[in-house]
């Protein structure tokens, strides 16, 4: 990411303008000018089983945050300021995805591929597919399918998996109807509120639908518009977190 002196001056002027005007066109220009940095950082995370395109999008989100928060008056280079923000966003992405460090890439890739296969099969069959059916559709052995599914549960029993941040919280509150939210909150206030309430809305919703409403993982996936494998990962992570708290208390 090297800009020559003239470019750097121009960018600096644009940052000063943007700090004052918050002009969207100016913001877009600043983001475009620094996309190389986002791509560069995204590329450093590609050996972890996520497609580069997705990572670049995540990095771009970090870049956008950095552009918005950067204060050019403080004399710091933008790239110096933005790098930790972008890397933080990428790390958060992996943490939310919940990959444990030791899952081999081959297994991670199959895990990702199976999410699509399971979705398609569920639609075709009108029910959750068996392990045998998934193996056949993906042209791998049943053992490989089991291994790949298990990868989604490979959480360590520690308190590291803190509930995810506010952005998700906001977007999801918009997704969930006020009625759903009210229902969940009132039920858990009576019984298990402190345990359930600590989770972000999506996890709270999934815990509620699975364990209090008796919906299957496939039904929850369809309702929330995410894959069954994703529901499975979020549930596994929430339960691991609950257990690790019991350990801390015990």
């Amino acid at each position, binding site marked *: 990411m090297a800009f020559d002196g003239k470019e750097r001056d121009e960018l600096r002027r644009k940052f000063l303008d943007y700090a004052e005007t918050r002009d969207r066109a100016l913001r877009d220009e600043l983001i475009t000018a620094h996309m190389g940095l986002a791509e560069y950082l995204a590329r450093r995370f590609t050996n972890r089983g996520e497609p580069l395109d997705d990572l670049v999008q995540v990095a771009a989100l970090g870049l956008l945050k950095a552009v918005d928060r950067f204060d050019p008056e403080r004399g710091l280079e933008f790239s110096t300021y933005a790098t930790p923000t972008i890397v933080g966003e990428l790390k958060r992405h992996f943490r939310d995805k919940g990959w444990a460090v030791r899952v081999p890439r081959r297994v991670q890739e199959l895990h990702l591929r199976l999410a699509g296969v*399971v979705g398609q099969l569920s639609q075709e069959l009108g*029910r*959750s*597919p*068996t*392990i*045998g059916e*998934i193996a056949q559709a993906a042209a791998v052995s*049943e*053992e490989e*399918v*089991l*291994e790949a*599914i*298990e990868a989604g*549960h*490979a959480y360590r*029993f520690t308190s590291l998996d803190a509930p995810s941040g506010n952005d998700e919280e906001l977007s999801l509150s918009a997704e969930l109807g006020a009625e759903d939210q009210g229902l969940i909150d009132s039920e858990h206030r009576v*019984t*298990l509120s402190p*345990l*359930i309430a600590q989770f972000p809305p999506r996890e709270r919703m999934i815990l509620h639908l*699975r*364990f*209090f409403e*008796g919906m*299957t*993982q*496939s039904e929850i996936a369809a309702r929330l518009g995410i894959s*069954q494998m994703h529901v*499975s990962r979020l*549930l*596994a992570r929430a*339960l691991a977190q*609950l*257990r690790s708290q*019991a*350990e801390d*208390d*015990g």
Partner: protein
Amino acid sequence: MSQREVRLEVPAAPEFLRISRIMAAGVASRVGFTLDEVEDLRIAIDELCFSLVGPRRRTGTITLRYLLDTDELAVEGSGRFTDGLGNDPVVSALSEQILAAVVDECVLSTGEDGPEFRLVKRRRPS
């Protein structure tokens, strides 16, 4: 079809309990369970093994017997500990709620030699 049995004994530590979960998924797929049912079973095994060991680190072993039948899978688990910390299973209200949602039958008990459980998961007719 006659009943078949798979038996597993592991040290009572989280890293080994993962094996009991993988084993559960493996035998469940032999019975022809759907992914949803396999996932439920996995959650149940996690909860139940945790209730055998409890929140404290313990010294001992967990034995699991997986009993495969035509349309159902029963799992019997027992903890044998040498640390003298007691034989009662530990189960929270939330765990009970979770277990009720994921398996057809589930009993936790204090056995003579340690905490025990038995669960049954049946295959839903498709």
